């Protein structure tokens, strides 16, 4: 089947899609956007987190057909060219990125958290990111990055 959706502000078409394909598969394998990751494809790790009509979702749990005519924003859509989003900037600077496989999902989830709650407490950060597994960092530097990103966004507005 043929699908049409808006991805990172552009209208995109995908052809020859099999009915069982997830949004994650279509983004990664058909639209050339492998930034969203595929660590479990079962909704358990958060590495595939994207915005679907402004709501953060696991792209592996969304059937590609469900995204038709809707608006998807992936991690590739957050930076402004070479200018990183403050969340991205803070993840790099805080040392929150090791292998980085969890990072795209955490970036989108953090972006979403700070949009909803501009100055989250540590407990709120932990609750919000509980669905995003990271095997490398033990999460300490991720907490540092989220706190710093919230401060930086607050200073910008």
């Amino acid at each position, binding site marked *: 089947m043929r699908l049409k959706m808006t991805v990172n502000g552009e209208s995109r078409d995908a052809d020859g899609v099999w009915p069982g394909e997830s949004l994650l598969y279509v983004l990664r394998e058909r639209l050339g956007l492998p930034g969203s*990751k595929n660590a479990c494809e079962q909704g358990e790790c958060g590495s595939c987190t994207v915005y679907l009509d402004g709501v953060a979702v696991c792209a592996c749990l969304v059937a590609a057909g469900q995204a038709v005519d809707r608006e998807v924003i992936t991690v590739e859509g957050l930076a402004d060219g070479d200018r990183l989003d403050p969340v991205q900037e803070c993840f790099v600077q805080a040392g929150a990125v090791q292998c980085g*496989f969890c990072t795209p999902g955490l970036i989108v989830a953090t972006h979403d958290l700070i949009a909803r709650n501009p100055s989250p407490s540590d407990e709120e950060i932990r609750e919000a990111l509980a669905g*995003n597994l990271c095997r490398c960092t*033990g999460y*300490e530097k991720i907490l540092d990055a989220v706190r710093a990103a919230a401060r930086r966004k607050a200073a910008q507005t």
Partner: protein
Amino acid sequence: MTKPLTSTSRAGGVGESPVRPDGPLKVKGEFAYSSDLWIDGMLWGATLRSPHPRARITGVDIGPALAIAGVRAVLTHADVPGDKFYGIDQRDQPVLAIDEVRYQGEPVALVAADHPEAARRALNSIEVHYEVLEPIFDAHKALFDPTSEHVHPGTNLVRHQPVRQGDPDDPAVRAQCAVVIARDYEVGIQDQAFLGPESGLAIPSEDGGIELYVATQWLHNDLAQIAPCLRLPQEKVRMTMAGVGGAFGGREDLSMQIHVAMLALHTGKPVKMVYHREESFFGHVHRHPAVMHYEHGASADGKLVFVKAQIALDGGGFASTTPAVVANAASLGVGPYEVPHVKIDAYGAYTNNPPCGAMRGFGAVQACFAYESQMDAVAEALGMSPWRLRQINAVSEGSTLPTGQVIDSPVPLSEMLDDLVAMPLPPSEEFDLRRMPGGVSNTTHGEGVRRGVGYGVGIKNICFSEGFDDYSTARVRLEMIGGEPAALVHTAAAEVGQGLVTLKAQIARTELGIERVTIAPADSRVGNAGSSSASRQSYMTGGAVKEACAAVRQRVIELAGAPADAQLVGGKVVTALGEVVAQLADVLGDTAIEETREYRHRPTERMNPLTGQGNSHVQFALCVHRAVVDVDVELGLVRVVELAAVQDVGKIMNLLSLEGQIHGGTAQGLGLAVMEEIQVANGKVLNPSFTDYLIPTILDMPPMRLKILENADPHAPYGLRGAGEPPTLSSTPAIVAAIRQATGLALKRVPIRPEHLTGTLAS
């Protein structure tokens, strides 16, 4: 496909914390992991695996699978072009099963198809006829019961390594003991659970060779195993490191490398292969489960008199790295303590359980849980504080280990414990449901919750041991680019997340006195770098980059006609007294200076097969942990409140990366203590998913307090000490000790499950 990395940060030599050169790509989603690779016209590969842990294969019919639309190839062992077996230590593992399968998940056949779904359907249509056999799944029986059947012809023993010092059975020795504690311990199977699935892309080349883009820990060792199976000379197998989504030992053995290459060579088309999560649980080796019996004797003043131990490690169906894991468990089996009388026997077994091999801590983790539990039991029996007992017995520089090896660099364990105990305990907090065991599940408001504090100490060998010719190679090129001196650093070493790409650039900046450094992609066009394991790359590849830079510097100094002890600083050649001799730009002109160097650590020796004696290790690294836990003793729920650690790293090369290693290692130790186990029944895995195999989330990890010491190792580059593994050892026993203190239970098995804490199961 894999791009060179030029640091965005201009400054940042050794000891500073510049940001990772791959950081911006990773946060933008533009870093190419092995599962992200894509090329026009590529096929999808898939693997058919045995559902049985032990069975004879009596027939395979690939006809129905080949008939499916979009299927381009179905291959079995008959299609393996060269050697039918591979293996990291012993070549005992069939590329595809031949007549018998030895573990559940063993690869039997391969498919290449136009779409992953077509490949999956084809897998379901391959008919394999099995004659199912009773699996051998009890490692103890496999090793010690003479009536046991054998997994491989003639034996179930991979390695037995004794360590003998003094005589723990001498009645005169026993008479010195005020307490003798004998207990059994068990460690379950832990999984590396790296997030990036096993994956890669193979592209056939015109000369009949192959380009392989894979995520691995050791390119050259992969190459040495892959080429003979493909019947290709090594130079026709061109390997490039694709982005690695974590490793932790799980990418030391091959997974899909030979398979994807076979499919590409057979079809003449590029083939991509990506395991899904369930398959990943079967696609790599795990941490060895262990059954251990320990007996400790100590005098009334707390001095250890003897330790006896029997350690049985279950390696599963194939050897993998079991021989080296056994050596670590044996040589480090009493921990960092002085013990005059020692009798250790460590065994590695073949069974039909999941194959086990390398995971962070590598044999030292299992023994550490047992010896630290024993130290607590001895302390309790003597009415001593657990950390004081450890200090009384602590090794220090000059101590002799039970293997006869003298520790010839600083190991300030006693001081580390002083520092640890002096760290403030977490302040009492206001009530918050989210900080209760059970969290927002609202299982308690504090009733039934007890706090406990525990300590753990671990010792890990760094680099490869036992006489292995362990080296790394680096090529460094210095030239003017755009009017600025710039270095290109090329090694085959695997960046698995630990930050080696950052460190290599730091070393080049410091040694060459420049700002601009580019890190070439790791590939097999440069010499062997050895494995990114055993916490060895800062030491080994760091050492190689340092030496290659020194060779480049030497040539620059000669060209400049400067005195031999001149330095390169700030783009200039400068004498030892700080006088500027020349600008690098003038010395270099249009020439590029390139040097390649191999770096080796001091030679080591094999352990004596009967006594374990010998200088088998290069370097020792210690970490100590204190854990504070809250336990809901009615429901058996645990919340780790805080973890504090002291580690001596010799030299802080990059504080940000180092802290990340200690945090991450500590988290994996927490996982082993209270969450992570591959559960196996009759040789079959019960929980191959992140739904059922739980790794720590951000809710499970407490704040971590760190103190890092820098007592230099005079034998190592910059005095550094490998740092990635030690925290994984010590956090597990510290957490278990804290839970013991909170509950009063003996707790002889990890991971601890709620039912172990509520008395439903004997603990």
